[in-house]
């Protein structure tokens, strides 16, 4: 009983001392689950290359969750870096400012391709935004009028597509990927299908027009996946004719189970995405608190290591994992902007 008391006392005492904030000796990172695998590779290689520094801690939790933690304030109890699969929003910059995070450095790490894939046993799939829009939108134009989506099979949308029930597994609304899907596929398809004109005639507000264009059908044929790509993969394994949305790197790791679809006739690959031929891609970022540079050991070195060509170049471990490297001039610009301490 006495030793128990002592242990409790020691624990409480150590806890009390901890309150007098200890200086952190490793970098803390949080944010996008898309950037997570890349950040993990960099964190691990960073610690191997610089044995003096501890391995950075990388939390997942989504772009928005990460930026929210990032904007909590300045100090060792707050994270140093927020990974994001989308640019930071104006409102988030404001929230950061209000909490004292006035100096934020933006670092672009490269591009991520978003691919459509189906089970490997299916025939080759050739998609265009127009067909995807017609298959997945909530409302489409038939005979010049907006009606609830009547299509049940892909072959009804376009006779060249397979004669299979429409079943699409698309990222849920909390995913950063969803935004890219809406912009690059649904909004583009909406225009190509001529639905935008019909919508314009019906609604005058521009925001509402866009919202109508990217609204996804809710009758169960398009399924929102709120989990990760592993869930989408499991859904496709269960429904062989389903079409799923994946990140390029995830697809490449599971290429024996999936067959990738072309978009506008282009096969997605790091080359076609880098050249801009493949239309569905987005930049990936991380944000650094300038106030923490020089305070948290290893933070500056981590960012420099991350932006070096050894990590984000065209022949780097990240490119091998599926990151699409930015053109050389842009990479040079990224490094220069960080070295100059350019803030947002």
């Amino acid at each position, binding site marked *: 009983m006495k030793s128990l008391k002592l242990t409790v006392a020691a624990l409480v005492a150590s806890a009390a001392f*901890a309150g007098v904030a200890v200086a952190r000796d490793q970098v803390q990172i949080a944010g996008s689950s898309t950037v997570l695998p890349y950040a993990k590779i960099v964190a691990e290689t960073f610690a*191997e290359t610089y044995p003096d520094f501890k*391995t950075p*801690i990388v939390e997942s*939790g989504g772009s928005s969750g990460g930026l929210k933690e990032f904007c909590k304030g300045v100090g060792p109890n707050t994270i140093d870096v927020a990974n994001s699969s989308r640019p930071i929003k104006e409102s988030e910059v404001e929230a950061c400012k209000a909490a004292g995070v006035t100096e934020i450095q933006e670092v672009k790490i490269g591009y991520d391709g978003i691919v459509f894939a189906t089970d490997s046993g299916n025939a080759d799939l050739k998609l265009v935004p127009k067909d995807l829009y017609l298959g997945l939108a909530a409302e489409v134009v038939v005979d010049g009028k907006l009606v609830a989506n009547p299509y049940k099979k892909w072959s009804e949308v376009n006779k060249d597509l397979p004669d299979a029930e429409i079943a699409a597994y698309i990222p849920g609304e909390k995913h950063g990927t969803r935004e890219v899907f809406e912009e690059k596929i649904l909004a583009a398809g909406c225009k190509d299908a001529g639905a935008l004109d019909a919508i314009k005639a019906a609604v005058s507000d521009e925001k509402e027009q866009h919202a109508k264009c990217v609204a996804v059908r809710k009758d169960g044929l398009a399924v929102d996946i709120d989990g990760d790509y592993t869930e989408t993969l499991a859904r496709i394994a269960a429904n062989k004719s389903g079409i799923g949305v994946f990140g390029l790197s995830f697809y490449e790791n599971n290429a024996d189970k999936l067959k990738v679809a072309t978009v506008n006739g282009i096969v997605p690959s790091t080359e076609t995405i880098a050249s801009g031929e493949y239309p569905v891609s987005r930049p990936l970022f991380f944000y650094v608190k300038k106030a923490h540079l020089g305070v948290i050991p290893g933070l500056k070195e981590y960012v420099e290591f991350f932006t070096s060509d050894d990590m984000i170049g065209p022949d780097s471990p990240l490119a091998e994992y599926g990151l699409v490297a930015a053109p050389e001039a842009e990479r040079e610009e990224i490094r220069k902007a960080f070295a100059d301490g350019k803030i947002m």
Partner: protein
Amino acid sequence: MSQVSTSPSMAAVGASAKPERRDIGLRGRYAAERRFRFYGMAAIAFGLLFLFLLLFSVVSKGYTAFQQTMITIPVEFSQQIIDKNNERATNPQKLVTANYPVVARNALAKVLGVSEDDRAGLKAVNGMISDSVRVQLRNLVTADPSIIGTTQKVTFLAHGDLDSAFKGQIDLSVPETNRKVSDKQVGWMNQLAESGALSKHFNTGLFTNGASSRPEAAGVGVALIGSLYMMLIVLVLSLPIGVAASIYLEEFAPKNRFTDLIEVNINNLAAVPSIVYGLLGLAVFINFAGFPRSAALVGGLVLTLMTLPTIIIATRAALKAVPPSIRAAALGLGASKMQTVFHHVLPLAMPGILTGTIIGLAHALGETAPLLLIGMVAFVADVPATPMDPATALPVQIYMWANEAERAFVERTSGAIIVLLIFLILMNVGAILLRRRFERRW
């Protein structure tokens, strides 16, 4: 009418044994009992079926994670590659930054007979070796620099994709471009396996390594230690606090509206979703008290808050179950109220308290939601030396591996579940043993 019908039967019973009439009700009741037993057995069979399915799916997918493909070949620690200009005496950093992966690659290329000029071949050879070889060879060299220039037999990890292929988890019938290992690499793999250079070893790294982006080098070591720290903190804090609170409420506190209110609140807290405790922990322990993010200490404190109501409820039930006659006898013999409680009531309630504590701990062990907000759902590679260092927990590691893209993480996810189940079984066995020990005192 009843008179008419009963009187002959009465007479019949009196005259000779004619049991049929009495059997009517009995048969129905027996049948009801049989039916009920059948329902009960069906329920148990149903439960067992699902337990079996769960165990089967986990074990059948996960048992391969306990073995790892490794390559054992003679490695030449070439002076040319590691320390070309012989400057390690003046510049020790040279040994740290040397290009060790090339050392391993050249060694394997030599065994496979790949020429030094065949760039594509060398790249394919490189793809068979885990990147973790860099740290392994570096540690060998920095521990003993005299091995530079010599040739040593080294066992290192094969690449995760090769490991999956060797275990038959990659479908080799699909076109070469659609899989991570090429036909050439598969050929080399079989060649190495035949000569005995490539074989499966027990995967100690699974228990000692921290998280890694390379599946072959990833392990639950950090998660195991993190879970262990948290369980210790939960035990050390919640058991004394919980038992003290329940003894006071049960034995000493007056029964009035205020204590009723406390009781209702404790029962409510036991049903609060665990994520709420995570929010509380973030606000109190990290933002207010300034504890470090991702630390096992904060995780332990949050889980303590979550476990306390369970322990208090179980302890109060155990105290209530001690017969009042024991208290009355102790008081009658002149023991004080406190002596009664600590010498007689508490020892008798101990088995119940321990059961409640273990159930609470097991619950806390499997929790991920409250850890999400305090930064413990994270990639942590370094083994935590103290509870103040960043750590993760076992269920968190399972969750994170389940979301990985690489095929080799599938078996590791199930492997980690097996480790978690073993952890839970050990805890429950411990509880049963402790309970047996205390129960003898009755």
